[in-house]
């Protein structure tokens, strides 16, 4: 630094320009990570396939153009009170499967789950071309059982799949109850009668891979009122 050049406001010696840049870049990184509640930048194990990502973004846009807030859930754009909002797109991970059922897992990061509340969450399932006539499918939402190794069923929906295409299911309450847990992971079980084919695409890279879209909002900071 030039001799005796000090910051007039705080008295700290002025930084050499090169060092100033490094300090500012470090400040920018620290500021972004802090606001995203991330201890460090995330390492991406395997990003979703481009096809699945583009299809999901298209579906979300189509759904938003005619969606209405689900009853019982806070409408997505309720008075935001200036709180930071998140939109999370989570693609399914394949779980265990049998000849007539398949498990899909959807993980949510601790950082987001720990600091937000769910406004809305929707499960998107694409049915490949079912056989002639309606195909019965049972969709169960499972959660880890805190007292034992099994999973507990939190909701069950029976669908009659008439033709191939996307179906959506409101999973808001299930995801909301997950957000308070140690491992925020939603498990979906799809079951068809014996002899029927699995209704969802078989491989991960298929652009019609199941996904969940969740809208969350930062929790209002806990205010302690002193009298």
């Amino acid at each position, binding site marked *: 630094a030039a001799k005796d050049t000090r910051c007039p406001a705080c008295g700290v010696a002025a930084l050499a320009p090169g060092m100033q840049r490094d300090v500012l870049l470090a400040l920018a990184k620290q500021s972004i990570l802090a606001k995203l509640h991330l201890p460090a*930048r995330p390492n991406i194990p395997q*990003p979703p396939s481009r096809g699945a990502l583009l299809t999901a973004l298209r579906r979300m846009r189509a759904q938003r153009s005619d969606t209405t807030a689900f009853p019982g859930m806070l409408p997505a754009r309720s008075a935001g009170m200036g709180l930071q909002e998140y939109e*999370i*797109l989570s693609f399914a991970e394949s779980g265990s499967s049998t000849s007539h059922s398949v498990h899909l897992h959807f993980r949510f990061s601790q950082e987001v789950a720990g600091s937000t509340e769910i406004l809305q969450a929707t499960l998107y399932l694409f049915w490949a071309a079912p056989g002639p006539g309606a195909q019965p499918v049972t969709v169960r939402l499972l959660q880890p059982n805190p007292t034992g190794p099994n999973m507990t069923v939190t909701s069950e929906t029976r669908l009659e799949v008439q033709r191939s295409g996307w179906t959506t299911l409101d999973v808001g309450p299930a995801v909301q109850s997950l957000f308070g847990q140690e491992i925020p992971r939603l498990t979906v079980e799809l079951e068809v009668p014996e002899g029927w084919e699995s209704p969802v695409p078989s491989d991960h890279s298929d652009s019609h891979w199941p996904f969940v879209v969740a809208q969350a909002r930062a929790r209002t900071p806990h205010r302690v009122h002193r009298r």
Partner: protein
Amino acid sequence: GIDCGRDSRMCCRQEFFVDFKEIGWEDWIIQPEGYHMNYCAGLCPLYMAGVPGLAASFHTAVLNRIKAASAAAAVDSCCVPTQRRPLSLLYYDRDSNIVKTDIPDMIVDSCGCT
């Protein structure tokens, strides 16, 4: 507010762009490619205290002259952001989910003296 020029000494807004590729974050931040963080720098002598930036009206300038004349406690004030904008980010979290969020108050739009 005022943008800093080459020889600005008074309180102004200094442009500063953070290129995510330069800091090796382009693999987990999908959009944007960087962001205009900007920051405030410069002097805030007593008679400039309390005005947004330097674009002060005539009335404020007269008031400042009076303040400077009184110079009760001849201390400088600080050059701080007076207007900021959110930063919209689309990024992968560590479970490879895609998250979109608007982080409030991340981009400094203008500066002024406290």
